[in-house]
Structure formats: structure tokens, C-alpha cells
């Protein structure tokens, strides 16, 4: 069965940040230097070739971009300055937009203006909604106590509802990712047993990012892990322990200890990344897509408003604290609603899922190449 070539593929990828793909002449230095390349996966060279040949369906079915953590060795070693690392990055953006069934992801990645407008609109809706809600149901005091319109319990209901919507959106995209890479591939059959046996890989890779650590350069892994754990801590605190943070005036040091550590982690990594991208300190910071800046901008905005709001609240300035809280929510809501299913935050789901799917594929490949009788037996059990 012939594969259809799309001669526009490189142009398409360029909208997602790829550059200089045409310079590649397939010497293979990138694949030689990459600690992950070898055996089943020969990236980034193979993906570069798919791109140059316009094999869109092959590229959509590949997991390889998710197995790359952009240490930048390949781009450093490339004699043609074809930027294979950045190409892999842009492929992750492109794949995200392929998995996303709404088309919103494709819109955001190809037009930063559209993403910015969407953020502003969601932020304004959030701000106006909160203001109207507050003015209708009491004063603007968001904290527990007299006249509070958004006590912890109400916020919990709100963020659980949001979480369910986000999980559904991201879940559908994950199913699509599975279908493109494993499920829909007629040449691959994975026994159900393997799906269950290997399921532990998703949480394992989610929490440890252990593959990232295999890159020669360990610092990006450490920074990324700090960022992810800070997010996770914040998420758990807000979803389950919000009332400990809002209760006052005495500070609950257990809850706040986690909160402060997480805030420090978020601010620290944001500053590190902004500095890195401005000064281009590391190879993976050399090229910045507009969405990278929007992501960092939102992160900085949310961290800053959260911290100021907390300080104002604890120093007894409720009116100002409430205003800052609304501002904080105007950052948090767009970040969660737009970034998690449609942009960079989706990586948290796709990366561990890719490790799982790739392990499944390897099992399936083994089934394919097994002798005929064994293959029949495996097919029966499946």
C-alpha cells in the first residue's frame, strides 16, 4: 500500500516552528550522538527524512518526537545547522495539534495572536464572571468567613467541574494519539494482556521523568522535575486542601510549607527559563516559539499574582487581596483551560503515554516477527 506524499509538509511544520529542515543531508550525526537513538528508533534522522519526503501519515504515526527531550546534542553536532532538535520540538507541537480533535491547538500553534486573544477573552470572562457573581451574591470577599461568595467548598466544586472537562478533552486527544500510533495501525497487533501488564509505565514516567534523566545533560531534567512537582503540589493543595490555606489568621505551616516550596519552585524555574531563553544559554533555549513565551508569561503572571494576593491576605488587606485574587484567577483559568488540552501542558499526558505506547509497539513488533505458529497462538490469546 502506497503512502501518500504531502509536498507541503515542511511548509506546514514551519508554521509550528521548524526551520532549516531542507538543509539536512542525512549524514546521521544527530542519530549517532543521541543517547536514545538506536534499535527500533533512529531519530531524529528518520523523522527528518519523513519530513523531507512529505510522508504526513508516517509522521503522524510516529512516537519519536515524544521520546526526545531536546537536550540539543543533535543540533550542536549537526554539520548543516539543520536544527534537528528544534525540528523535533516543532513536531511535538504539530503532533499535539493532530491529536487535538477541536482544531484549537492547530490554531494556537500557527497563530500566537489567536492564542493571545483566546487567553484575554477567557481572562476577561473569568474576571467579569467573578465580579458579577461576587456583586450578586455578597461582597467580593473570596475567603472563608462572613459574606464570602467563594468559600473553599464552592471553589472545590468549581475546579472539580473544570478538571472533569479538561480530563475529558485531554482524554479524547490521548485516545486519538493511541489510534494514530498503535490502535489504527493494521500492521501492529498488541495483545490486551500487554496493555494491562505495561500500564504501570504511565504513572512511572509521569512521576519520575526517568527517561529525561538519561540525556547526557542532567540539568534540564532537574529543572523540569522541579517545575512539574511544584505544579503538582499546587494542584493537590488547591484541589484537596484549599481550606487550610484560606483559614486564618493562624498559618497552617504544614499546608503552607508545601505551598511556599511549590511557589518557590514555580518562580525559580520561570526565572531560569526566561533568563535561558533571553540569553540563549542552552541549545534548547536557542529558538523560542511564540507559544513558549506565552506559556512563560502566564506562569510568571499566575505566580506573581498568587504570591502578592497571599501576602495581602496575610497582612490584613482584604480588599486589595480580593482584587488580586480575581487577577490571579484571570491567569489560572486561561492557563488551565487553554494550555492543558491544547498546548504545552498536554505534554504531561502525552509523554508518559508515549512511553507506554512505544513499549506496546515493541511488544507488537515482537509478535509480528515471531514464527507463524507462535504468532497464531498469541493472536488467539489476544
Amino acid at each position, binding site marked *: 500500500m502506497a503512502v501518500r*506524499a504531502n509536498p507541503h509538509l515542511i511548509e506546514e511544520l514551519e508554521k509550528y516552528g521548524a526551520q532549516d529542515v531542507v538543509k539536512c543531508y542525512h549524514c546521521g550525526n544527530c542519530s549517532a550522538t543521541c543517547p536514545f537513538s538506536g534499535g527500533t528508533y533512529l531519530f531524529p534522522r528518520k523523522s527528518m*527524512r519523513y519530513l523531507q*519526503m512529505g510522508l504526513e501519515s508516517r509522521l503522524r504515526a510516529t512516537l519519536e518526537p515524544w521520546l526526545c527531550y531536546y537536550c540539543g546534542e543533535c543540533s550542536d553536532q549537526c554539520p548543516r545547522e539543520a536544527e534537528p532538535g528544534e525540528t523535533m520540538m516543532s513536531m511535538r507541537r504539530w503532533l499535539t495539534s493532530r491529536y487535538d480533535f477541536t482544531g484549537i491547538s492547530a490554531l494556537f500553534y500557527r497563530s500566537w495572536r489567536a492564542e493571545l486573544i483566546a487567553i484575554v477573552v477567557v481572562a476577561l470572562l473569568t474576571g467579569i464572571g467573578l465580579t458579577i457573581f461576587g456583586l450578586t451574591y455578597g461582597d467580593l470577599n473570596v475567603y472563608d468567613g462572613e459574606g464570602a461568595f467563594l468559600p473553599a467548598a464552592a471553589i472545590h466544586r468549581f475546579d472539580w467541574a473544570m478538571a472533569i472537562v479538561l480530563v475529558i478533552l485531554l482524554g479524547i486527544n490521548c485516545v486519538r494519539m493511541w489510534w494514530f500510533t498503535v490502535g489504527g495501525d493494521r500492521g501492529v497487533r498488541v495483545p490486551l494482556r500487554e496493555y494491562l501488564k505495561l500500564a504501570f509505565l504511565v504513572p512511572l514516567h509521569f512521576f519520575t521523568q526517568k527517561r529525561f534523566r538519561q540525556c547526557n545533560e542532567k540539568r534540564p531534567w532537574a529543572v523540569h522535575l522541579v517545575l512539574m512537582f511544584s505544579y503538582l503540589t499546587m494542584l493537590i493543595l488547591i484541589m484537596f486542601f484549599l481550606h487550610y490555606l484560606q483559614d486564618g489568621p493562624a498559618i497552617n505551616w504544614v499546608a503552607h510549607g508545601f505551598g511556599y516550596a511549590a511557589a518557590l519552585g514555580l518562580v525559580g524555574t520561570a526565572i531560569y527559563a526566561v533568563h535561558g531563553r533571553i540569553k540563549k544559554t542552552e541549545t534548547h533555549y536557542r529558538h523560542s516559539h511564540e507559544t513558549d513565551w506565552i506559556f512563560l508569561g502566564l506562569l510568571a503572571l499566575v505566580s506573581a499574582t498568587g504570591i502578592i494576593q497571599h501576602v495581602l491576605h496575610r497582612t490584613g488587606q482584604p480588599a486589595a487581596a480580593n482584587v488580586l485574587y480575581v487577577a490571579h484567577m484571570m491567569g489560572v483559568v486561561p492557563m488551565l483551560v487553554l494550555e492543558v488540552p491544547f498546548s504545552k501542558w498536554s505534554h504531561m499526558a502525552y509523554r508518559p503515554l508515549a512511553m507506554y505506547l512505544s513499549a506496546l509497539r515493541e511488544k507488537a513488533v515482537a509478535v509480528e516477527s515471531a514464527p507463524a505458529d507462535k504468532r497464531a497462538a498469541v493472536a488467539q490469546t489476544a
Partner: protein
Amino acid sequence: MKDDCRIGFYICNCGTNIAKVVDAEQVCERIAGLPGVACARAYKYMCSNPGQEMITRDIRERGLNRVVVAACSPRMHEPTFRKALEAAGLNPYLLEMANIREQCSWVHDDPRAATAKACDLAHAAVRRVRYHQPLEKVEASYAPATLVLGGGIAGLTVAVELAEASQPVYLVEREGKLGGNVGRADLTAPYLDSARDILAEKIARAEASPKLDILLRSELVELRGFVGNFRATVRTTGGPTRDLAVGAVVVCTGYQEFDATRIERLGYGRFPDVITSFELERRLRMGRLETDDGRIPRYVSIVHCVGSRNPRYHPYCSRVCCMTALKYGHEIKSALPAAMVTDLYVDMLSFGKGGEDFYRRTSELKTMFLMYEKGDPPRVRAAEPGDDCGLLVQVNERLSGEVIDVPADLVVLMVGMEARADGGDVARTVGISQDRQGWFIESHPKLAPVSTATEGVYIAGCCQSPKDIPDSVAQARAAAAMVLAHVAQGKIEVDARFAEIDPDRCSGCRMCNELCPYTAITFDPDERRSSVQSALCKACGTCVAACPSGAITARHFTDKQIFEQIEGVLAWSSSRSS
């Protein structure tokens, strides 16, 4: 005559080329003892100036009247040593060479046997040289006019160069206009300058030159005579038949394109949007780059090596197609920036000045390059309904192993060059030969690229082999320089070695007439005798061997000389074996 011979024998070490296997001193000693040998010497490099001077001095001081040089092949240095004889006032044909390098030291490794063989070869030369006769070269006049066949870029260049050097030229072109295949092209790679501009300048110069006679719709019918003294019969359609006296003929008959219908799977002839490179050139020249039904193509596929580098059609590379295909990438992109170009190639041969850079620039235009296997050309089929293209080109991509369908609205076939179907007629008429593919053969692929086996007949441009415009022009100017060198001398020296027919012994059987590869023998029907035109004869000896009456003698290759040589080779070896 042989009793008063004073032979000088000189053996060359050729550095170590000869001396490392052959004991030159021993050969010297043995030859010195032969009757008639006045001196025998070995020297490191006989062909060097001191070596030549040694011979000249010995001739003068020792009164030598024959010289034998045992060294390399006579093809290498016979002219050198002949000059050494002439410098001492001795007839150059009184020299004989024994080839003890190519035919001895280079091919043997046993020093004893090789030395013995060198002795035999030297002995043979000594025996032979005693029967050499002083011969005089013959001079003939050289007509200044030149006949140029073909009005393409090569023929035009030759004609203009000669005419502007004030020599008369007849430029014979079969078609009704000048320009040839270059006249069918739009721009040229790699600098994207216009083919029409290149030609217009040449044609203007040709037409302005009073010395240049352009004969359109004309063909050469017959060529008689020999170098410097040809008679050419040129027939013009609807015009007179002329008889021209020319000194040289330059053949620039070019090439024809491969017939793409021969490769059925490419769909040429079946799909109107599968076109050849020349058809695309015409559309580009007219500025109408569209499909058969007038749509703007969104996808253009270019198939390389159509008929070239394929053992079923032509095994050779046509040399210009890769660069031309890259040129199409630029031309299509500049005419239709939204169109996507795909090159389906076997190997990208972007050699030569500016070639690699041109390839790089084309790939930066996001041209897609897919590689296919030589014997497995792509297959063109109609696209399915609802597709955004008219055709699909299926290619077994060699680097990835994928079978790929490439969308195409226009498929361009880079048809290769092939020798003209009627090239054989031209070759027979002017007396040159063709290789297996039909290209005209040059005297030496490196050192005499525009000369042919027939003196005074030169070849230039694509009739010799596929080449691009710069190479064709370079060959054309080389041929012009060859002609001018002879014209400047105004006469031609004919080698003194040629066959002679003794009219008293000739029976007029005409056997030799048919056999002569140089058509040097003519038959006089009144006298009923054949005779050799010495200027055409190359002294190959075919007629000598064939003549049933023994009436033919080749000068410098007489029976006596050859028998003596054979005796000489066998003299010592027979004593060794007994």
C-alpha cells in the same frame, strides 16, 4: 647496402621502469657484438635532452647511419628520436625502436627471462633497421575553407570562430533555422541566463560575418578527397547542389531526445499532462505554465533519468538532465510560488562549476527529492476522483523503502540524449566511426578529444557524447583551433609511410578497394588498375596482406624488413631452446 651499415644502439633504463627487470648493460654487451653495430650505449633516460644529444653527437662523430633505440612504445617517443636523427642530418626513417617497456619490463617479473626477451627484441630491431630506407614526407596544399555540419551551439561556435579569423566557412544546417537543441530551451543552468540570448548573439555574429556561408535546409551528400583537399557535395532542398572545396570538416550534428513512450509506465502519450522536458521548455518560453486543460498546476513532479542510466535503454548518463531539472525547480517556483515541485531521481549528479550550489539552492526552495532505483522507474496513474491533483506518481523510494504516491498535476520527463538515428549515414559519408551507442568516436578520449580517425575530420558537441553547453562550446573552439593551426601552415605534411601499388603487377581485381578502412584506394576503370592516395593511407597493411598478386608494398613495412625482424627475434631464442 647492409654491409656499410653503421648502427648506433641505445638502450634506455627509463629510470627504473626498464632497469628494475631488464639488465640493460647485458643487452648492450650482446647487441654490441652484432655485425654492423658501431656503438651500443645504455642511459638513464634516452628521451631526455642529454639522451637525445648523445644520439645526435654519435651520428656526427662516429658516422652512424642507422639508429636503434630500445625503450618505450614507439607511440610514445618515436617522434622524439626521429627529431634527434634529423638534428644530425640523418633521415628520420632510419630509426627503429624496440619496445622493451610496455612489451617487456612492465609485463614480466623474471629478470633473466625479461633480459633475454629484451635482447631478442633489440636484435630484431637491429636486423630490421639495416633494411630501412630514407623516406621523404609528402606535402600537400591545405584548402582554407571549412565545412561545418550542424547549426547548433557547437556548429555555430566553430563557424563563427573560423569566420572571425577570416577563414571561409560553409555552415550546413538541415533545418530551416539555426540554433539546434539549445534553441528549444528557455533558461540555462546554473546561472539562469537565457538560452535565446546565448544563441541570438552567436547567430547575429554568424550572419554578420562575410566569410560565413550559411546553407540552411542543406545536407552533405558526399565527401571525397583527403585532409586539406576535400571535395564536399552539399544538396540544398529546393536549391542548387554545390561542390565545395574544403580543407577540413567539423561534424557538429548533435543529438536527438529519447522517445519517452518506450517506458510505458511513465504514461507518456497516455496522459496529456505527462510531458517531456522539451515540451516544458516550450511552455516556459511561451510563459504559459499550465496543464492540458488550462489549469495552474499545484504539484509538478520531475522524473530524472528517462532513458538514461538504464541498461534496457541507454546505459550512459545524459549529463545535463539533473541540472536542467534543478533549473525547472527554480523556474516553476518563480512562475508559480504556490506550486510544489518533486524531483524523482536516481542519483543527483550536479557536478561542475556552480552545480552543487545550484542543488543546495533548489532544495532550499522546498523541492522534495525522492530517490528511485535505476531499473524501477516511477509509475504514473490518474488520481482518484476528489483528489486535489490530476495524477499520482508511484515511486519505490530507495532511501526509506517506502512506496510513495506523489501528487502531480504535471509530470515532466527528463528525456535523455541519444545519438541521432541517421548518425550512421553521417559517419559513413565523412569516414568516422561510431561507438555502440552511436556516438562518434574521437581519436583519444583525453588527449585528442575532437580529432577522429580520419585526418581533417573533427567532431564537436553532443554528436560525440552527451554534454552541456559549456562543454560543447569548449569542444567547438578546440576544433576551430585545430583547423586554424593547419590553415595557418597552408600545407599538410603527409607521412612517408603509405602503401604503393605496382601497376605492372596489379590485376585490377579491386579486392583492396573494398578492404581499405580509410577509402584510400581508387580504381581507374580505363587503366583497370588500382592506386593508393598516399595522403589518405595510414599504412595499416590490410591491402598488402590481401593483394593476391603481391602487387602492394607498404613503405617502411616491406616484406624484407618484416622478415628480417622475425629472423632477429628468433635468432637467439632458437639457439636457447635447442
